[in-house]
Each structure stands twice: as structure tokens, then as C-alpha cells.
């Protein structure tokens, strides 16, 4: 049974996505909804399956491909299912979403599922490419020159990152003669070729995760895209590249992941946190603020990864709860960021403008969305009692155990920055002197979807010890 569920995770969205090509436009929404619903159900189902390895075609592992279902992949598939499902609801209600969105989104979703399942480095590259093509095309859905330019830049950066990753795969195959992640991690030795492979693959994935200094494509791409697309990109697509980094540093190249290597990650992460926060504080546009926040938050995730690498390298912390913390942080960010983007998009639609100076009135008349944004900001800053708080607590206690004072400080400052630019935005809804403006009618259900995601970001923390004690 579990094999059918896992196969369905990839096949169901791809088949329905492909079908949207030939269906007449009235039926595309139906096909898209069916595809989304099925993938959501399968994604949630997979969380309850026991951890296992499934060999495709029954071929023994080094020869064939294998799918690995463990805590990390199950959690991320489930997270993608929930967040993706809710974003699909938003997109279904959104009139400005063209029908080709559904084909592209289902393709991206199927690619993400396949990405989380795979235990083969070259297959990871192929799923990454399918995701890139779909994501770039989704950015280009917006009918504006700025969006198309952003999409092209995204494509160029993404392809270059993929090339670097593939170069690493070539080096790994040349050195070890296998492509399977489990076998590679067993055979990994500390030599120049492996170190270079790690470096090159990391650079490629860092470019795709938009970590400083390779981040400049993200603010444009995520802010120019349609609202649902921005949410998908910031909450989910970015995380796939980060997941790749996790697998590389904690699994495949674990032998090479030294404390000094984690320092490099930590420095880049800190730069991302401060630069992203600074830009979010000073930008004049709404969606760009949220996009810069993603740059900063991704820096936070990378910082957590650096700490976990350090913990694994020094064996000073019991390694059981390490990956759970990372996945938790990913989940908290995905929920909060998607809520924030959806709410911001709704407000922007109402106001008819993206500039912070012009949305005050719309914000005051979108109480549900503003509440969703507030919850999102609270969670992202790590204030109690949200998922973000639990994640931040885990991060800070890990840093304390490792005596990594510098990273602790960076993380705390990052929280302060998040609060600062979050407050900057929310303040607009509290201003007393705002000129009334004509508002575009926007369906209230959009506000509710955003609120739903934000509530999950808050209450997701309650009763979650089953997650932390190991599935």
C-alpha cells in the first residue's frame, strides 16, 4: 500500500497537470482542484507511513533508483501538502490566476514530492530542473515586463546553480562510482575531490536558496509574481534547495562537515539576516518587504544548519533532535510566510497599489488579513507561543550548548529586525490620519485562507511533542 501512496505522490499531480494542457479552459480549474486535492491527501497520508526505502523497479540500489521515506522527507512532504493545499484554495478563488497556472503548479508540486523522496544525487538534479522550469514559468505568468525580467533572471541563476550541482555529481561519480546518497555517505572520505564536490554543490544550492551574496534574484521574482505564486515560491520552492543542503551536509558529506566549514555557512547566514532585514526596513513596497524578509529568514535557516553541522562535527549534542529542529523551522517559516504573502496580496489587490504609502486605507479595511499578517510576524520573530517561538527556542538552546555565542547574538538580532520591519508594515493599519480611497472588491475568502495558514503557524506548536520525540 505504501508503495502506491509514494508512487501516487509523484504520478497524480504530474498526470493531472499534463491533462490541463488538453482540457478546455472551463475544465482546467476542475482538473487542477482534483490534482491538488489528491496530492494533498496523499501527502498527509505519507506522514503516517513507517520509514522505509523503496527501490524503483525492484533493482538493487546502486544500479537503480531508490526512494527514501524518513522523518525529514515525510515531514516536508506533509508540510508541502498542507501549505500547497491551502495556497491552491487561494488560487482557486483568485480571478487573476490564468488557467495555465494549474498545470505549472501541479508540475512543481509533483517535482517537489519526487525531490523529497529521492535518495539519488542525479535524480535530485532532474527533479530540481523540473521544479525550476515550473517555478520560472509561474513567475512569468504575471503580464508585466518586470515580472518577465525577474523570471529570466531567476532562470539564469537557477540554471547556473544546477550546473554547479551537476558538476559536483560528476566529481562524486568519478571518485566513488555510485550515485546513491546512502552508499556515498558510507564511502565518503576526506579528500580533495570530495571536498571540492561539496563546495561546488553547496554553491549551486546556495544560489537556488538565494543566500547572500547570490540572493539578488529573489526580491524581484517573489514580489513581481502573482500572489499565489509568491507564496508557493517563498514558502515551498526555496525550501527544496535548502533541503538539498541539509541532505548534503548532514548525510552525504557528513564526514567532511567540519566546524570550520560550518563557520563559512554561519557567516553567509549572518550576512543574509542583516542585509535582508535592512532592505526590508527600507523598501517602499509591500511585496518586496515580504520578499526581503524571505532572504533574511533563509539566512536564519542556514544559521540553524551551521549550528547543526557544528553539533554533528563535535558530537557534543545528542543528534536525535537535530533534524527535527531544522524541519520545524522550515515548517514554521513556510506557514507564516505563505500566510503573509497571501494576506499582503489581498491587501494589495484591494488598494490597487503595492506602495506602502498607499495601502493604509486598504489595510484598515482588511482586518482578517492584517490579523493574519500580525500572527505571521509574531511567529517569524519567534515570539511566544507560536511555532516560530519553539523553533527559535530550539535554535538558541542548541547555540547555548555549543557555546556559539556569536550565532546566538546574530539569531537574536535577526528576531529584533523581523519585529522591526513587521511592525513597520503593521503600523500602517493603526494610523489615524488616512485618506479614504476607493477599494477594489476582493473576495473575503482570500483573507480567511491567509488567516488559516497563520493560525496553523501559531497553534501548530501545541501538542507537538510527538514530533520532537521522533516519529
Amino acid at each position, binding site marked *: 500500500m505504501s508503495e502506491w501512496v509514494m*508512487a501516487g505522490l509523484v504520478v497524480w499531480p504530474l498526470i493531472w497537470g499534463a491533462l490541463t*494542457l488538453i482540457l478546455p479552459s472551463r475544465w482546467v480549474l476542475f482538473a487542477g482542484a482534483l490534482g491538488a486535492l489528491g496530492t494533498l491527501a496523499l501527502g498527509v497520508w505519507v506522514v503516517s507511513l513507517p520509514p522505509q526505502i523503496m527501490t524503483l*523497479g525492484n*533493482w538493487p540500489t546502486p544500479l537503480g533508483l531508490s526512494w527514501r521515506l524518513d522523518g525529514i522527507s515525510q515531514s516536508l512532504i506533509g508540510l508541502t501538502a498542507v501549505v500547497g493545499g491551502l495556497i491552491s484554495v487561494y488560487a482557486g478563488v483568485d480571478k487573476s490566476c490564468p488557467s495555465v497556472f494549474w498545470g505549472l503548479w501541479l508540475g512543481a508540486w509533483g517535482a517537489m514530492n519526487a525531490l523529497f523522496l529521492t535518495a539519488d544525487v542525479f*535524480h535530485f538534479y532532474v527533479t530540481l530542473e*523540473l521544479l525550476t522550469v515550473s517555478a520560472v514559468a509561474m513567475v512569468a505568468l504575471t503580464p508585466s515586463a518586470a515580472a518577465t525580467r525577474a523570471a529570466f533572471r531567476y532562470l539564469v541563476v537557477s540554471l547556473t546553480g544546477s550546473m554547479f550541482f551537476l558538476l559536483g555529481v560528476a566529481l562524486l561519480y568519478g571518485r566513488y562510482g555510485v550515485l546513491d546518497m546512502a552508499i556515498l555517505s558510507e564511502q565518503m572520505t576526506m579528500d*580533495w575531490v570530495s571536498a571540492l564536490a561539496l563546495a561546488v554543490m553547496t554553491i549551486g544550492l546556495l544560489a537556488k536558496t538565494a543566500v547572500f551574496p547570490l540572493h539578488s534574484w529573489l526580491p524581484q521574482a517573489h514580489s513581481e509574481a502573482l500572489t499565489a505564486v509568491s507564496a508557493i515560491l517563498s514558502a515551498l520552492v526555496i525550501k527544496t534547495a535548502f533541503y538539498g543542503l541539509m541532505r548534503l551536509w548532514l548525510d552525504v558529506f557528513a564526514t567532511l562537515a567540519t566546524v570550520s566549514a560550518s563557520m563559512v555557512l554561519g557567516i553567509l547566514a549572518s550576512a543574509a539576516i542583516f542585509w535582508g532585514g535592512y532592505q526590508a526596513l527600507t523598501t517602499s513596497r509591500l511585496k518586496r518587504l515580504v520578499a526581503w524578509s524571505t532572504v533574511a529568514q533563509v539566512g536564519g535557516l542556514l544559521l540553524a544548519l551551521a549550528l547543526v553541522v557544528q553539533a554533528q562535527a563535535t558530537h557534543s549534542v545528542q543528534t536525535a533532535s537535530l533534524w527535527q529542529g531544522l524541519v520545524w523551522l522550515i515548517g514554521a517559516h513556510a506557514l507564516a510566510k505563505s500566510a503573509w504573502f497571501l494576506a499582503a496580496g489581498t491587501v494589495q489587490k484591494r488598494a490597487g497599489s503595492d506602495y506602502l504609502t498607499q495601502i493604509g486605507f486598504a489595510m484598515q479595511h482588511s482586518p482578517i488579513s492584517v490579523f493574519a499578517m500580525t500572527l505571521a510576524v509574531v511567529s517569524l520573530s519567534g515570539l511566544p507561543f507560536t511555532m516560530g517561538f519553539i523553533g527559535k527556542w530550539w535554535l538558541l538552546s542548541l547555540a547555548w550548548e555549543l557555546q556559539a555565542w556569536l550565532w546566538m547574538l546574530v539569531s537574536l538580532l535577526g528576531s529584533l529586525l523581523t519585529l522591526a520591519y513587521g511592525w513597520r508594515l503593521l503600523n500602517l493599519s493603526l494610523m489615524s490620519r488616512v485618506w479614504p480611497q476607493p477599494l477594489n472588491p476582493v473576495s473575503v475568502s482570500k483573507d480567511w485562507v491567509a488567516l488559516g495558514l497563520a493560525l496553523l503557524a501559531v497553534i501548530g506548536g501545541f501538542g507537538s511533542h510527538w514530533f520532537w520525540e521522533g516519529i
Partner: protein
Amino acid sequence: MVLDGILVLLILAMAWRCVRTTDLFEAIIVFVGLGMMIALVWTRLQAPDVALAEAAIGAGLAGALLLANLRQLPEDSSAVRWRSSWLWWSLWGILGLALGFAVVSIQTTPVSLMPLVQAHLPESGVTHPVTAVLLNFRALDTALELAVLLWAWMAQRHLFEGNFKAFHSLQGGVLKTTVKMLFPLVVLIAVYLLWRGSSSPGGAFQSGAVLAAAWLMLWLAQLPGLNWQRLSLKVGLLGGVMVFFWVGLLGLFQGAGFMGYPADQAGGWILLIESVAALSIGLLLASMVLVSMPNFQEQSP
């Protein structure tokens, strides 16, 4: 040995010219030439399958695609100029040195998966190892790669402007007659490549590329070719991905694992998948080029 040295120098020189020139037309021509040289290198490296694919897709089709698009792009464009500094150049140099060092040290570790491939080749249903790897051992790779092609087309389709300008006739009767004679021959070559793919270099991708060339020839000669509005054509585009996954699920149903085949039926299923895939690949590649043409009309004239 000397041939290799000359080839390498030629390739590096052409690559350098391609990225350095400011004339786009020249860059494209050099790129196509580079692709041809690289196809030669693939034959030198005992990779005839890849050589076929590189020549047909990497040089030929890419060239057609690039030239078709070139006319519609302005000279200067919205390319992002990246800031280059001494920091960047030193990193570039370090990367080069590190890669050189790594490549040199890899030569001493000749490990590979080939022994495993050869051991399981009899059960795979085909006798050509590359086809076995592509369509059997690592079938999901190929299925997703077909999906990448389909989704890229989906994206292109949406971006297609739909210029319904009048046709400019290219040639008179000579082209038409020649194409009428050539078309069945080219299709025959495609079928031959597909059929032989199970035991010698060939297969769905090469066959699909040749099919694409055949359809493009028809269009160039303004012969009635494909009517892109017809449902059967659109289904043909999806066919490769669909059939691949359905057979994959069937394999799961029959107990051979997802994307696997029962050992005695493997050859038949692989041929089916390859045939449908070749058709899809041909349609997708042809339509990618046609959609780029400035005078392309949706309905057949």
C-alpha cells in the same frame, strides 16, 4: 592523439569566441559549430548514443531554435550585467585550479556501475546498456526528463504571442518536391533509430529529434503538416509522459515495483514506451521551434 589535441584546441577556441563576441548571429553560428565538434568528441569517447543526440538536439535543434528567435530580439537587451571584480576573478581562478587538481586525482580511481549494468543486462529486456539504464534501471529519471520537456513547452505555449501575419513563401516548387521525397525517408530513419535502439545506439530521443526535423521540413515547404488545433496532436504531446507513468504503475500492480517491468515482458513495454515517447519528443521539439517563428500560424493554411 594528435586529433584529440586539435579537437580540444578547436573547441576551446570556439567556446571562447562564442561567449566573447558581441554579434549574436556569430555567437549562434559558432555555438552550432561547437555542438558539432562536441558530437565528434562524444564519438571519440565511445559514446555514439550521446553523439547522435548531441548532433541532432544539441547542435541542430538548438541552432534552429536560436536562429528562429534571433530576429525578434533586440540587439541590446535586458541582460543583467553582473559586476565583476578582482574578488570574482580570483574565485574563478581558484575554482579552475581546484577543478584541475580534482580531475587529475580522479583518474586514479576507476570505479563505476558498469559491472552491475552488465550483470543485469539480460533481465532488462534490451541488449544495449545505455537503453537499459535509461528505460529500465533508472526509468524514473527519463520519465521526469520527458516531463521537463513537456513542462518547458507548456510554459512556452503560454508565452507564445500568436502573431497571425501572412505567410511569406520561401521557395517555389523545388523545395516542395524535394521535401515530399525526403519526408518518408526521414521518417523511416526515425523509425529505424527507434527500432535499433534496443540493441545498438539509438532510441527514443534520437528518433524524436529526427521526427522533429521531418515536421519542420514540411512546415518550411508549406506542405500541409500538423494542425496544432487538433486534439489528437495535443494528446500526442502528452503521450510520452502519460504512457511512461501508466506502465510504471502497471509494473507496481504486477509486482515488479514502481517503474519496473516483469522480466519477460520488459522488452515489449520498453518498445511501447520508446515509440510513444519518440512521437512526443518529436512533436514537442518541432513545436518549440515553430512557436518561435515570427510567421507561425496556429491553423494550417
